[in-house]
């Protein structure tokens, strides 16, 4: 019941942001729209807010919020770092690449966490997901420049660190 209330509040907040001003009639219409939204999302997708539907204590939830901020920070930091590196390649006179395809096995179980890890991999310096195998849980990844084996091990360790953070949130 508490979790349903939380999803209700989140959707209502989205409606109020779109509306632009708070009024009694706007609020009443928002509750109606939220009920319609919950019906439609129940019809098509059972586990929409899976993160919020799980049961845990108060102290654990604060730790989870800390890790959520960590992951969002990693998102934006990785985006800027990788963009700087790729744009350095763009303005070189003779750009030289050493691309490589590789496969990495994850230990994550939930589907949302796999999705978020794939978004993070798309943003870490010079990686791109080509395919995902659901049976073996293998990502097929294309890397833009890997000069030596040490650098490859370093980057694999980076992905492993992100994986650990996401596992703290969802599992």
């Amino acid at each position: 019941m508490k979790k349903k209330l939380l999803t209700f509040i989140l959707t209502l907040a989205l409606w109020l942001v779109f509306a632009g001003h708070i009024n009694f009639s706007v609020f009443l219409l928002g509750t109606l729209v939220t009920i319609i939204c919950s019906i439609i999302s129940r019809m098509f997708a059972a586990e929409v807010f899976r993160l919020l539907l799980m049961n845990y204590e108060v102290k654990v939830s604060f730790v989870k919020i800390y890790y959520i901020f960590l992951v969002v920070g990693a998102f934006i930091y990785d985006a800027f770092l990788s963009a700087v590196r790729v744009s350095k390649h763009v303005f070189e006179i003779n750009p030289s690449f050493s691309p490589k395809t590789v496969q990495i096995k994850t230990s994550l179980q939930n589907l949302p966490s796999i999705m978020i890890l794939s978004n993070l991999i798309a943003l870490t310096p010079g990686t791109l997901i080509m395919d995902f195998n659901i049976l073996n849980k293998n990502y097929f990844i294309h890397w833009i420049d890997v000069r030596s084996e040490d650098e490859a091990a370093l980057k694999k360790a980076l992905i492993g660190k992100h994986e650990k953070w996401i596992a703290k949130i969802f599992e």
Partner: protein
Amino acid sequence: MSRVHKIFRKFYKIGLVLFLAIFLLFIFDEIQNLDIKRYLSEHYISEGVQETGAINLVTSVLYDYRGFDTLGEATVILTAAATLSFMTPIKKVKMLGTEFTIIIYQTIIIIIPFLVVLGMNLIFFGHISPGGGFVGGVILAMIPILVTINYGITFSENKLKPNHKSLLEGIGAIGFILLGLLGIFAGSNFLASGQANFGLGNPGELISAGLIPYLNLMIGIKVGAGLAAIFNSLIKEG
């Protein structure tokens, strides 16, 4: 000979496009410099807010001054959906397509509540902010389309029956006409909301502008159901 011919054909197309662009440029230049006094548009701009109660001028033209034209546009979608559902075969032919990975499935599931809230907001706030029935209907129609390309045609038609879609579309069309008939009962023209003084209210609030929000809602339901029906029947034909 054939190579010269090929080069000539390529340059012929480029030259045709350039000629059309220059022609349109001259036409727009002529339209800018015309000396016709625009009584009607100046009337809409100066008096539109007081007469209809809607801040969004496009909505006030679309649903109040020219409401009858909007009815005609909505009929086009109704005719297209009816014709397509009449012509499609009963047996479902599966259309070939690339399989999506599980990552895309998961993203689409997360996006669906966002789309519902955005579409509803565009419909209900059509008279005080940019948007309206047509755009909101398109956003709402994206949900069945996403479900169709995600889980296949069978799952989508099991959840949302085609009969229900055509019923929703009929409710939208008939509701629009019934709301228009209210103007006649009030002693004015067909589809009159501003002239018949249906509680215009203060411009800028949610409940204002007479009949315009309800007309928006009807158009939104109709466009959403119609576009979903059209997409599903096009996919089914294969």
